[in-house]
């Protein structure tokens, strides 16, 4: 895209021979439609006659619907990028431009700038600007491998992958590949306008079968975030944003040893959802058979529940998509603990790799032991009979087949669970 100032003082997006200022830029971002760029020219302090070395261009990309500023850069047009006052230097520092070049021509510069509608003379109010509507700017076609590479190579590594829209199967499959590589939970949300049968059949059709995939569904109505009236119609909406926000806030509350309280599932009474004016969708009746159907499909439904403390809208289950009736991996908090401990132990192993063997065995053993002990002390791991009453066991030894370069880690641990069902037997007795 090129923004030019012609010799007649006209600011436009159409380059021509004889332009006095040419700003040729390309953004990393594809802006879509509804964006205008505003151009304002002014002079550096103390200057009286415009030259390329003292003329400041301010470029503002603005959303024409909300009038909000998307990007703004301002600097002297004729200075090189080495000069911190230059437009090039300011634009480059934003990291938003994949390229930007500014070309100026001195001959006739002063007359063209002062004659432009975008020019603000010294001591003027500084409100002159020219607004140019940008053409529609759409990204290239979806590329699954590019998405996979962008996420798996990103830093910092994400702790959660969130997919607000599970409808796009190609994206969903790519995200499952990413999840396998990064070993982190993938939270997906089903379309909130579906019926119970549709929701169940959709997630069954996706058939993720993985303990790291969590499906949620929000069949509630609430006032949209953009509502301007209390009388407006209530709408369905996605809930996974608020869910992941609650999870990140919970994870930030680490104990003194740096262990996040991921043994506490973000569900039920203690984590109510707070969209404005919530109510259940009138066409969704969550009776016993509907709830059984949703639980069979392992969908965590956000619904209205009446507690002794009052009514709350909560996530009413903690199931992952793991195909098992009683494994620990079918519970969200157990799954999070397993992923977390595995990933940290992998990091410890990586950190000590390429040390001498005995040093590796001592250092990695110590760090893994300390880490798992800290997890057990924080309540993430619980004592298990199979482990002799210990919450974890591990053994780090040199591999007998390649004792010079390979070691072997065998680790077992028992994660914390979450109560999904209660069996309540009671009797009445006479005496």
């Amino acid at each position, binding site marked *: 895209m090129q923004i030019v100032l012609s010799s007649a003082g006209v600011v436009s997006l159409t380059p021509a021979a004889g332009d006095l200022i040419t700003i040729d830029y390309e953004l990393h971002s*594809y802006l879509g439609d509804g964006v205008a760029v505003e151009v304002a020219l002014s002079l550096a302090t103390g200057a009286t006659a415009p030259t390329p070395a003292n003329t400041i261009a301010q470029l503002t990309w603005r959303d024409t619907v909300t009038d909000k500023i998307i990007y703004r850069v301002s600097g002297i047009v004729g200075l090189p990028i080495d000069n911190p006052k230059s437009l090039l230097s300011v634009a480059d520092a934003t990291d938003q431009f994949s390229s930007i070049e500014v070309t100026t021509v001195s001959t006739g510069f002063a007359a063209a700038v002062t004659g432009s509608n975008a020019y603000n003379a010294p001591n003027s109010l500084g409100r002159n600007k020219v607004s140019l509507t940008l053409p529609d700017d759409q990204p290239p076609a979806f590329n699954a491998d*590019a998405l996979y590479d962008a996420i798996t190579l990103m830093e910092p590594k994400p702790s959660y992958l969130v997919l607000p829209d599970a409808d*796009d199967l190609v994206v969903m499959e790519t995200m499952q590949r990413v999840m396998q590589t990064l070993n982190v939970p993938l939270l997906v949300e089903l379309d909130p306008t579906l019926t119970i049968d549709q929701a169940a059949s959709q997630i069954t059709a996706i058939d993720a079968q993985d303990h790291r995939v969590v499906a949620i569904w929000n069949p509630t109505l609430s006032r949209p*975030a953009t509502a301007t009236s209390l009388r407006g119609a209530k709408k369905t909406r*996605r809930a996974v944003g608020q869910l992941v926000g609650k999870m990140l806030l919970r994870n930030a509350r680490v104990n003194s040893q740096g262990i996040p309280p991921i043994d506490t599932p973000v569900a039920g009474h203690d984590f109510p959802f707070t969209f404005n004016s919530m109510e259940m969708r009138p066409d969704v009746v969550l009776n016993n058979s509907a709830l059984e159907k949703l639980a069979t499909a392992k969908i965590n439904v956000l619904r209205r529940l009446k507690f002794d403390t009052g009514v709350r809208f909560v996530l009413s289950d903690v199931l992952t998509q793991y195909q098992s009736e009683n494994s620990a991996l079918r519970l969200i908090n157990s799954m999070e603990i397993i992923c977390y401990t595995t990933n940290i132990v992998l990091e410890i192993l990586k950190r000590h790799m390429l040390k001498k063997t005995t040093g590796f065995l001592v250092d990695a053993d110590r760090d893994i032991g300390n880490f798992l002990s800290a997890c057990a002390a924080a309540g993430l791991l619980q004592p298990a009979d199979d482990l002799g009453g210990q919450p974890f066991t591990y053994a780090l030894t040199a591999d007998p087949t390649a004792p010079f370069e390979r070691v072997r880690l065998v680790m077992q641990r028992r994660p914390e669970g979450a109560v999904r069902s209660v069996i309540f037997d009671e009797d009445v007795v006479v005496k």
Partner: protein
Amino acid sequence: METTPIIGSAVGIQYQGITDRSGSASAAGLTNGLIVGDFSRGRVDQPMLITKDTLVQLGDTTKPAYQTVADCLDTGVPAVLVMRVSQS
């Protein structure tokens, strides 16, 4: 007397600087959420770090993915990572 990294025959002290062993094993945090979705604006080659101030960089406020990011930030999370995908 000289202080030198490799001592020879001369009188001196061999000293090669400090070796830092003070860094303790630190468990990485779990506070990076990555929201992947269809937005009307933004780059598609890399994730973006979005805060309340830069939400406008995601464009159309009615898209479900945009609302998800806004909801996440509304809970008090200072910033969230966002990956835009083109429509497949």
